């Protein structure tokens, strides 16, 4: 059977207007919700009720919105780390492991303890942040080094090292620092808690129960920093040149091996900082499952943000909302389905940026 019309894809010869990438991404997200709604209807749900419940669970109150930002915080940092690596065409999907290693290194500051726990709070927290960065960076160094020197595929190594990090963590929280045999360490001293808005509830009652902590500021600073690196620095130029054509970069005299290692370390450092922010700002101890798959969602966040450091922030908030709303709803897999559909559609929507799509009537084609 032949349809009366067909789609014709013509490669674009001119650059697309500036608003186009954003518009197609938003369009793709809307279509993803529509498709998910159809699936919901097919399995007997009422999509309108589900979505309105979804929306109120996520944005219904300041408390809920603050929860979203808390979930978005690690996603921002990991998403930024992925964006830097992807920009150079290094597919770091080890955000999860680097996150755990950052959390572990930061926790060691108070668990060992590396610094007397009666030190000032800012000093403890600064050291923890630096340790988190170090842990993630070292854990990024391993696949970076293997890739640079032995050309080992970083997708495999980063993916596998995720599991190593989780079990490494488990060893310490079960074996060494277990709190009365539970798979978690004792709660950290208050000196190792990141300040949160709820701390101000005495002076400003409005903030009572608001969980938003200082980690979100780390995320915002990181976004600015990454933006400066990618858009304005010499290093950012080298990264974009290697990412687009490594042979040209080599020809331009850029040391590719060094850059692979450095970028993997930067990418890991950001995930490590996210791990530190999570243990000090949210759970206040090292334990199992501190990550709600942040390492993997970070990959998606980076792609959806088209590797733009500032776009990472709203995308991370959208994903935070999906996580928060997903807690309130059964089956809880729903929000994963929506996440997946969004990713699929946003990536495929690229076709509109590269091609002009025209509908041609079949008989016109015949006549031509």
């Amino acid at each position, binding site marked *: 059977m032949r349809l009366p019309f067909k789609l014709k894809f013509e490669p674009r010869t001119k650059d697309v207007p500036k608003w186009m990438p954003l518009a197609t991404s938003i369009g793709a997200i809307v279509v993803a919700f529509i498709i998910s709604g159809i699936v919901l209807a097919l399995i007997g749900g009422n999509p309108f009720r589900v979505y309105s419940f979804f929306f109120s669970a996520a944005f219904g109150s300041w408390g809920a919105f603050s929860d979203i930002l808390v979930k978005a915080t690690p996603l921002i940092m990991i998403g930024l780390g992925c964006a830097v690596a992807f920009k150079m065409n290094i597919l770091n999907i080890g955000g999860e492991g680097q996150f755990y290693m950052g959390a572990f290194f930061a926790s060691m500051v108070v668990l060992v303890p590396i610094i007397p726990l009666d030190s000032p709070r800012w000093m403890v927290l600064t050291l923890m942040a630096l340790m988190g960065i170090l842990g993630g960076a070292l854990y990024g160094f391993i696949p970076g080094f293997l890739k640079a020197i032995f050309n080992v595929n970083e997708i495999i190594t980063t993916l596998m090292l995720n599991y190593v990090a989780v079990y490494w963590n488990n060893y310490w929280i079960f074996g060494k620092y277990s709190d009365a045999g539970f798979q978690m360490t004792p709660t950290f001293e208050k000196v190792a808690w990141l300040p949160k808005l709820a701390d101000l509830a005495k002076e400003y009652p409005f903030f009572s129960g608001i969980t938003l902590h200082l980690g979100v500021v780390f995320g915002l600073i990181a976004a600015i920093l990454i933006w400066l690196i990618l858009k304005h620095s*010499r290093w950012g130029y080298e990264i974009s040149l290697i990412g687009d054509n490594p042979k040209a970069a080599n020809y331009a005299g850029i040391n590719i091996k060094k850059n692979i290692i450095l970028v993997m370390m930067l990418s890991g450092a950001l995930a490590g900082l996210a791990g530190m922010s999570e243990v000090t700002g949210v759970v206040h101890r090292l334990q199992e499952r501190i990550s709600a798959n942040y390492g993997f969602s970070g990959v998606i966040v980076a792609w959806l943000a088209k590797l733009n450091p500032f776009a990472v922030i709203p995308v991370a908030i959208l994903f935070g909302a999906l996580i928060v709303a997903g807690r309130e709803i059964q089956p809880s897999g729903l929000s994963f389905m929506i996440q997946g559909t969004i990713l699929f559609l946003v990536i495929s929507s690229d076709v509109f940026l590269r091609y002009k799509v025209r509908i041609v009537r079949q008989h016109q084609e015949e006549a031509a």
Partner: protein
Amino acid sequence: MTQIPNGSNYAVDMRDIVIRFPGVLANDHVNFTLKKGEIHALLGENGAGKSTLMNVLSGMYQPESGTIMVKGKPVSFRSPKDAIAAGIGMVHQHFMLVPTLTVTENILLGLNEPKFFMNLSIYDKKIEKLQETFGLKVEPTAKIWQLSVGEQQRVEILKTLYRGADILILDEPTAVLAPQEIDELMETMRTLVSQGKSIIFISHKLNEVQAVADRLTVLRKGKATAEGIDPKGLTRTQLAELMVGRKVIFQVDKLEKEPGEVVLEVENLFAENNRGLPAVRGVSFEIREGEIFGIAGIAGNGQSELVEAVTGLRSSEGSVRINGTEVGNCSPSKSIRCGLAHIPEDRTGVGTAPNLSITKNTIMKSYSQDPISNGWRINYVAAHDHAVGLKDSYDIQAPTVDTMARKLSGGNLQKLILAREISGAPQLIVAMQPTRGLDVGAIEGIQQILLEQRQKGAAIMLISEELDELLMLSDRIAVIFDGELVGQMDASEADLNQIGMMMTGTLRSGE
């Protein structure tokens, strides 16, 4: 031809062919006729629409309008299969052969024979017979990798003949051949037409066209500027005018220039190719200020590896010194610091980053130097001005400097690379095939730029497969064969025949 050219006398008769691609009219009402038993040359610059027209004839594209008649019958090809069935065979510029299979196996590849038993000896005999008829000598049981480029081309021709083609399209067949091999190919073409085949011969070179072609069609910007004219008596200037649409001066003005100090010294250089086999074997030469040193040779004799070893892109043994500083087997950045400019063979794969803007491509070598960079930052305002300056002074055709490099045509991309490399005031320029695949106008501009740099005192190493170009530009010429320089001579004393024999390895100087 004594036959009256009525419809049925044409092997191919294409009328009013129109092909439109986004933004361009690739073929604008083109007429093309091929008589039985003639060689019809098709000329035109890159992008003039030659390939498009031939792709229509070989069934790859369907024209928007126009009619095609093959041997007097109207046809409408839906796929290349239909074209082959109608007796049209195309020999591509890049061979499509499997190196580890024999000649016979390659010819049979894709055919429905032998049916089950691989009794290849029968087919070897069949192919030998075909060879005798058309004078195309190749050993049927030889493996492709054992054959020279010229022999491989014969296999490609045999492939089309075995499939029953009597209309052959040869797409720039001489581009890959040495002078002697070109003569042999022309002989083959004459034999083929004497046996009743018809040939469409795509070429850039007038002397070849005049040597074999009966008629000539020239395309420019999708339109035919000459339809089936007689090439005899046409001058090079007239032909260039048909192709480019304006006068082209062929003889570039090469001024006298006394060579100065030695800039590049290469001593006993060895390098391996990507498969780990020796590709450069003990090469030594030197180039002085204000001197162009040309290296001739058939592609694949170690030129790429030699260039990469000299520019620091490939590890090597031996010595490479720029102004006395050892740069061999170091890093590309060290060579760049020593004043090296490199115009690479592969414009898109090595010379530019396709998805970055023209601006970002023009600062590839200077991004860490004042004024483009101050400290850790890149001053994109200064970079933009730098790019605009280069775009204007080298006449790079692009909407803006923010346009991505991949949207530039080959000639403009090459201008961009040259502009970038030369803006660094280099002392040594290594240029590999700087004019390959460019149209006549662009070639002229690029040769002019190289000569200007010579005048300014740069030492230039020029690797080219175009002997005419080498002879015209170089002060001294060397021939590379199988990784060795087999002869060095002054360009004024160079003898084309002798160079040709050196290129094929039949002659070494001093033997």
